């Protein structure tokens, strides 16, 4: 997968587009799934608390207004009628009027100092005894009993403010408060004081731990808070079923999940379109360049109508193509010139060498004449050898050196070269060794002529530059490489001169080598030849007089 991504720009682009297309959607989905639920619950709790406070406030305001009403009524002069046991029913009418005004489940009544109900909005209880007289207390002005709230006020005679005539009492049914509880959210909303509950109670018990709290159960969210003022001993509760509260949220999630296949398809579709749109000109460019490389016709030009980056690339590419075409033409012209030159040089050179040899062989020459003719022959031979070298290099550079790759027994070939040069080494008094113990290849695919030419060059160089000691030819191989090493104990190479050695017509300048023969093409040619058979040559030396190790490496082919 990674590999194919690395190889294809369009796949990388497609991948990037898909990632870019999906990422926001996926992030949003994860955010919604993980964070939104908590946030929604938190918000709900906050809202419920707010609502609870509001309700609590409304209830108290309502009850306080009733409290004031009770206080107000108790201070009316009309209350003097208590003394006359409300003969004219003036108080009762007033209280009835008030009750009707409120239109709630409540009852106003007046008791005298003996606890007897003198007047009441409910005429049925007149002249009965108020059973809770002992609950009337100066300080609190209210008390709760069951689901009833009693608010009362002492009534004093208008003529004597110290004379207590009795009490004005409001008996208030707490069920009235149910009107203040909001049931729209399908929630259980209720107020509670000990066991007294007003409203819809949750189907389970909730233990109260503090004045205000919220509890998130598996299915429910519970919010409660303590009320104040008249209802200070009461708690208001809101219990909301989670699935109802989060219904919208869950619907949204479902919607998103249903939507995701479409988003996936859409993203892939758009990504495909876009990556193709971007890569198309590059693909076109690649196709044309491939064609050019295959046909080797560098005089072709690329046509790109776009003026964007790819268009500019094509333009630059055309400039390069033009340069390449010119360079190739120049290079081919050079190679063809060198090749022709070499051929033309051979004919006269043949006559020079031939005549020199003819003179030496058949004419009676004086010693001096022999010397001269021998010099002519010698120099001509070097010249000829150089021409061969140049011709080979020209062929290689023009890509016209043909190889004949076959399965070869390189051990035999190496032995052959070794034997060829053995007499030369022995004559110089050098030890000449062939090591093959780490060589395990039976056959190796290469070009016989090139392999031998390189090996002979390396060996003869080693012998040439070694005065005493030894020259070792070592063959080794690893799983994928074949090494031919020529190790000598000769004059070695200075580090700084190492690079120069592979340049044409270079010989290292020191006292020993100046006496040596050679065209200065051998090593450079060998390296170029080694490249043709998919190998390389490199030299190693610790420095002057430290010997040299010439490495000829070949890659094993399948």
């Amino acid at each position, binding site marked *: 997968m990674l590999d194919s991504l690395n190889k294809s720009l369009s796949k990388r682009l497609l991948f990037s587009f898909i990632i870019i297309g999906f990422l926001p959607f996926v992030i949003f989905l994860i955010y919604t799934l993980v964070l939104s639920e908590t946030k929604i619950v938190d918000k709900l709790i906050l809202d419920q608390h707010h609502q609870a406070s509001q309700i609590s406030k409304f209830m108290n305001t309502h009850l306080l207004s009733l409290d004031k009403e009770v206080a107000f009524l108790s201070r009316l002069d009309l209350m003097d009628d208590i003394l006359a046991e409300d003969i004219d029913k003036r108080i009762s009418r007033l209280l009835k009027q008030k009750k009707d005004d409120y239109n709630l489940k409540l009852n106003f009544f007046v008791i005298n100092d003996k606890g007897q109900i003198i007047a009441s909005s409910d005429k049925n209880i007149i002249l009965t005894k108020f059973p809770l007289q002992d609950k009337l207390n100066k300080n609190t002005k209210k008390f709760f009993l069951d689901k009833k709230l009693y608010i009362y006020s002492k009534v004093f005679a208008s003529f004597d403010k110290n004379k207590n005539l009795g009490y004005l009492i409001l008996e208030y049914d707490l069920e009235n408060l149910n009107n203040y509880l909001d049931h729209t959210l399908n929630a259980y909303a209720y107020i509670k004081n000990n066991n007294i509950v007003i409203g819809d109670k949750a189907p389970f018990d909730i233990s109260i731990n503090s004045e205000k709290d919220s509890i998130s159960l598996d299915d429910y969210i519970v919010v409660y808070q303590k009320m104040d003022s008249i209802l200070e001993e009461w708690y208001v509760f809101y219990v909301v079923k989670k699935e109802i509260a989060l219904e919208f949220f869950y619907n949204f999630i479902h919607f998103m999940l249903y939507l995701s296949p479409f988003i996936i398809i859409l993203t892939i579709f758009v990504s495909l379109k876009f990556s193709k749109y971007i890569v198309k000109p590059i693909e076109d460019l690649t196709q044309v360049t491939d064609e050019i490389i295959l046909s080797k016709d560098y005089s072709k030009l690329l046509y790109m109508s776009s003026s964007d980056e790819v268009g500019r690339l094509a333009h630059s590419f055309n400039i390069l193509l033009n340069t390449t075409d010119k360079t190739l033409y120049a290079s081919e012209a050079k190679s063809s010139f060198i090749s022709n030159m070499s*051929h033309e040089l*051979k*004919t*006269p*050179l*043949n*006559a020079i*060498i*031939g*005549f*020199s*040899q*003819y003179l*030496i*062989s*058949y004419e009676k020459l004086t*010693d001096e004449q*022999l*010397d001269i*003719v*021998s010099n002519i*022959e*010698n120099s001509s*031979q*070097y010249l*000829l*050898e150089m021409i061969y070298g140049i011709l080979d290099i020209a062929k290689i550079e023009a890509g016209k050196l043909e190889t004949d790759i076959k399965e070869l027994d390189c051990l035999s070939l190496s032995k052959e070269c070794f*034997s*060829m*040069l053995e*007499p*030369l080494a*022995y*004559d110089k008094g050098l030890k000449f060794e062939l090591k093959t113990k780490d060589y395990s290849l039976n056959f190796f695919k290469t070009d016989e*002529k090139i392999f*031998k*030419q390189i090996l*002979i*060059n390396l060996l*003869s*160089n080693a012998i*040439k530059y070694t005065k005493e000691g030894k020259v070792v030819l070592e063959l080794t191989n690893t799983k994928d490489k074949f090494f031919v090493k020529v190790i000598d104990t000769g004059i070695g190479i200075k580090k700084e001169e190492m690079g120069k050695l592979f340049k044409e017509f270079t010989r290292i300048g020191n006292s020993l080598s100046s006496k*040596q*023969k*050679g*065209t200065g093409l*051998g090593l450079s040619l060998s390296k170029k030849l080694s490249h043709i058979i998919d190998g390389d040559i490199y030299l190693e030396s610790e420095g002057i007089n430290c010997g040299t190790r010439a490495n000829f490496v070949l890659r094993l082919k399948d």
Partner: protein
Amino acid sequence: MNILVIEDDRANAELISKLLEKEKYNVDVAVSFLEGERAIDKAFYHLIILDWNLPDGSGYDLLKVTRELLIESQVLMLSANSDIGYRVKALDAGADDYLCKPYAIVELLARVKSLLRGSSSNKNPILKIGNISINKQRKEVFVNSKEVDLTLAEYDIFEAMASNPNKTFTKFELLNLSNNKYASSVMSNIIEVHIKNIRKKLSNKEVIKTIRSVGYKINLSS
């Protein structure tokens, strides 16, 4: 024996004719396609030495003409081109041998002799120099009938020298003979070594004479 040399380079033509005359052959020289064609028409030659590049046509075409005319002369093609393709083409068209320029004159001589021997059937595989005899067929060398073990390179050198006992061989000639394909000036010293070894193996220092600063020659008086 009559030999026709068709070679437009006058220096080379003269070299070949001088060389062959020294070896007692009758030599005619033609310097163009046309001259060559006329000469072939006029007389029979045992051997035609034919250069590939002629100013007014190619030696290759002339070879084909010769063969079409059913002229049975031996033909040795010369060319500056060493590509194997040319050699094959020439041999296919009926050439008897093919020699690349530049060639060592001893090689040219050897080829000429070999081609002419083929037509004269006068073959003597045994060469003798004093107490040394050489069996060319089996590539064996004997001293007083006792076989001497020479390496192939040593044998090639010694046989060439023994076959041309009047000729002085330069080191380069011998190098070309012993290791034609991989000859390199770097290896010119190897000839000295080979000569040294041959002398030692034959137990005869005199058989090969050193010609100072030039090369070597068989010493028939050894």
